[in-house]
């Protein structure tokens, strides 16, 4: 491909691509994000390719592997354009029928999504409740384009915002537009991006750097990964626009090496952008030079913190430093550096193209635009959802997420990763934005949203997050390093049924000190899950301490497995599966568990057939004595 040397040439190429493509041509798209890859989308792709070849339809029907569509629960997803027919949970053996159906314009009923409430089969992707209530803006193009094809991105008007910024706007005008849009950083704290850009621009010192943070470490969050995998050019375009506004000529992308597909697609996109003259010297003939380098992160949660990330990029152990001087003043190599996360950069081209007024028309007073959340845990429709700021938790969890599986009761939702808090049912109608979440003791974070039901123990969850931070703390400052260890010790104590009431005060006191005295945000916010659970679920702590009872029946030390002799069908399944031989009984003899041998692995509970559901978990009550040798009474059908 010859380098594009001017804005006119870019437009010409775009028109050429559009002219070459028939928008009404049938195209089978296949979601190929990591989650769908995990569900074997690779082999579905091969099967579809084979079938198109076999049925001689390679020319007539297109096949495109796209990025993540978001509805991971139902993956691998196939969407057929232009009709938008959506097939879920597609298997390689479905390929022949799909291709046949496309040829004959027939819909394959059994592969359609069926509404779990009404049972109705839904043909079109946009009519599925999961999608219907979303506002897919930044994440939207993921489902149309092949991330490995720059032409696909150009086809959907990619790099037009860059051309607009470079040809029609001065750097100051670009900056002004972002400031007016009130774009807040999507990576955690919600700091105004325009302000950060301006500080970097005005800071003394050259060169200046711009950096993409794709070190998405929050467990249970994968928005940035899916954007980087599915639409890397949008991030690159946003970064170039930012660099132009700030006056930077060198950018970095810090990406976790645990995201191999993101690294691969990003590197390919960078190479293409360079070839096309969208990166490098004299971009599109504008006279603006900019290049991007990729730095793979080697796996340290704290290295996603801005100061630590800058140090990691120098090839050192990424530990945070005091931040009385912002990165915008002294960041990478002590030079002014502007760091935003993937989603923030990817939002920039939209703002430049459509204007700040348009962006301000979406969202709430203090938080504009849309936000991508990873809706996971005990929720029916797991996946990535993009909604306007201000939507309530209830709308997200019930209208989009389809509620809690198996009719269980909602208990809480965790936002903000290990730095956030667990929000109880009473706040389900809170509109979600940066400020509202902070008000109720949690935070937006990067957008993880983990739903918990009555089978989740809140003390155990608090311990999980504290242990996570304990493991990930760099150990540089004492409040974080030692505070977390104290918290972990006490919480473990409580989970094991050894907790004392006065320890709850110790938890609160240590948490306060950590908040005030930690070096970076990891330590300062690490106690949030403890504080919010203590505030909203104190009764669970008390049950563990006073009654030696785990209400959710999770904490191993406080539960016992028990087989209800009235329900047991003596089917031998649990007896055969028990790894320690703790299940006693035999053929036609009611089974019972020898408690001394039981390691509480939970296998019997899982394998007991639903028609019996004889295995129970008991907590805070004595296990009834077994009656060895009792014969099972078979009910007549």
């Amino acid at each position: 491909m010859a380098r594009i040397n001017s804005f006119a040439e870019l437009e010409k190429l775009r028109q050429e691509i559009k002219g070459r493509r028939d928008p009404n041509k049938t195209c089978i798209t296949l979601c190929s994000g990591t989650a769908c890859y995990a569900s074997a989308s690779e082999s579905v792709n091969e099967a579809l390719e084979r079938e198109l070849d076999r049925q001689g339809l390679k020319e007539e029907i297109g096949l495109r592997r796209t990025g993540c569509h978001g509805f991971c629960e139902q993956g691998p997803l196939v969407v057929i354009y232009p009709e938008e027919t959506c097939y879920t949970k597609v298997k390689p053996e479905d390929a022949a029928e799909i291709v046949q159906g496309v040829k004959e314009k027939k819909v394959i009923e059994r592969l359609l999504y069926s509404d779990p409430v009404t049972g109705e089969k839904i043909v079109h992707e946009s009519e599925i409740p999961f999608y219907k209530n979303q506002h897919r803006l930044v994440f939207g193009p993921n489902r149309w384009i092949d991330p490995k094809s720059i032409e696909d991105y150009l086809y959907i008007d990619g790099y037009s915002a860059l051309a607009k910024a470079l040809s029609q706007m001065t750097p100051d005008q670009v900056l002004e537009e972002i400031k007016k849009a009130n774009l807040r950083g999507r990576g955690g704290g919600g700091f105004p991006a325009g302000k950060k850009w301006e500080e970097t621009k005005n800071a003394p010192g050259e060169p200046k750097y711009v950096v993409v943070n794709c070190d998405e470490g929050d467990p249970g969050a994968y928005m940035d990964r899916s954007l980087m995998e599915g639409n890397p050019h949008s991030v690159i375009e946003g970064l170039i626009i930012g660099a132009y506004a700030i006056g930077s000529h060198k950018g970095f992308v810090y990406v976790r090496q645990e995201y191999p597909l993101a690294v691969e697609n990003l590197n390919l996109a960078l190479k293409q952008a360079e070839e096309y003259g969208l990166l490098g010297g004299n971009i599109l003939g504008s006279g603006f030079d900019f290049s991007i380098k990729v730095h793979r992160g080697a796996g340290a949660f704290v290295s996603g913190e801005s100061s630590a990330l800058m140090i990691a990029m120098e090839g050192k152990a990424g530990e945070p430093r005091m931040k009385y001087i912002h990165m915008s003043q002294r960041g990478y190599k002590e030079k002014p550096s502007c760091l935003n996360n993937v989603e923030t950069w990817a939002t920039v081209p939209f703002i430049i193209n459509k204007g700040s007024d348009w962006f301000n028309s979406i969202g709430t007073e203090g938080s504009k635009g849309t936000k991508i959340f990873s809706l996971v845990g005990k929720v029916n429709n797991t996946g990535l959802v993009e909604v306007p700021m201000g939507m309530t938790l209830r709308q997200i969890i019930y209208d989009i997420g389809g509620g809690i599986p198996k009719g269980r009761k909602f208990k809480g939702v965790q936002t903000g990763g290990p730095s956030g808090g667990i929000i109880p049912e009473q706040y389900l109608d809170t509109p979600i934005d940066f400020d509202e979440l902070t008000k109720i003791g949690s935070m937006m974070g990067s957008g993880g949203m983990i739903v918990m039901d009555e089978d989740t123990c809140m003390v155990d969850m608090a311990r999980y997050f504290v242990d996570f931070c304990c493991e990930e703390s760099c150990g540089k400052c004492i409040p974080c390093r030692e505070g977390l260890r104290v918290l972990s010790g006490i919480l473990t104590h409580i989970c094991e049924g050894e907790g004392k009431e006065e320890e709850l005060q110790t938890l609160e006191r240590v948490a306060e000190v950590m908040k005030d005295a930690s070096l970076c945000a990891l330590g300062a916010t690490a106690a949030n899950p403890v504080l919010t659970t203590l505030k909203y679920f104190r009764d669970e702590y008390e049950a563990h301490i006073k009654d030696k009872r785990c209400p959710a029946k999770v904490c191993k030390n406080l539960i016992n497995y028990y087989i209800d002799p009235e329900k047991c069908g003596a089917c031998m399944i649990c007896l055969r599966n028990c790894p320690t031989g703790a299940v006693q009984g035999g053929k036609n003899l009611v089974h019972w568990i020898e408690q001394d041998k039981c390691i509480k692995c939970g296998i019997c509970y899982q394998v007991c057939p639903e028609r019996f559901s004889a295995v129970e978990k008991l907590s805070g009550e004595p296990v009834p004595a077994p009656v060895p040798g009792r014969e099972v009474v078979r009910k007549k059908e």
Partner: protein
Amino acid sequence: MVGISSTVNKIVGKYQDDRDMLIQILLDIQSGLGWLPKEVLTEIGKQLGVPLNRVYQVATYYKAFSLAPRGRHLVRICMGTACQVRGSPLIRDRVQQLLDIEPGETSPDMKFSLETVNCLGCCAKGPVITVDDAYYGPLGVSDVENVLEKYG
């Protein structure tokens, strides 16, 4: 080990002997060899002009690096929040019981290495584990044995 110097030289050369690229160099070696032998770390330090203690500081700070050889199969258990609420601790305990090793260890016959990871990013499949490049999920405790047997 023969050829350490030239192997290291090749990778270091790819990054123009740039010290800032230490982590990238270690990542490349780790993915090639599966671990970071002492001799290699020494050689990297020598060629880059970085003190050995700093090479070790970096190699021990980040989770991606292993200073001991790994087994033939790498089992990774996702302990992300989504998997956690869906019961990953029970899965972890079961894997540990079956392999008889703790996370971070390798079985004496060098067949399996076990790791826990913060999030594999396929929360819809949780609880999930990976063995080498294959994903398994959603898993129940009773499924673990069958999965591991495939590699036994």
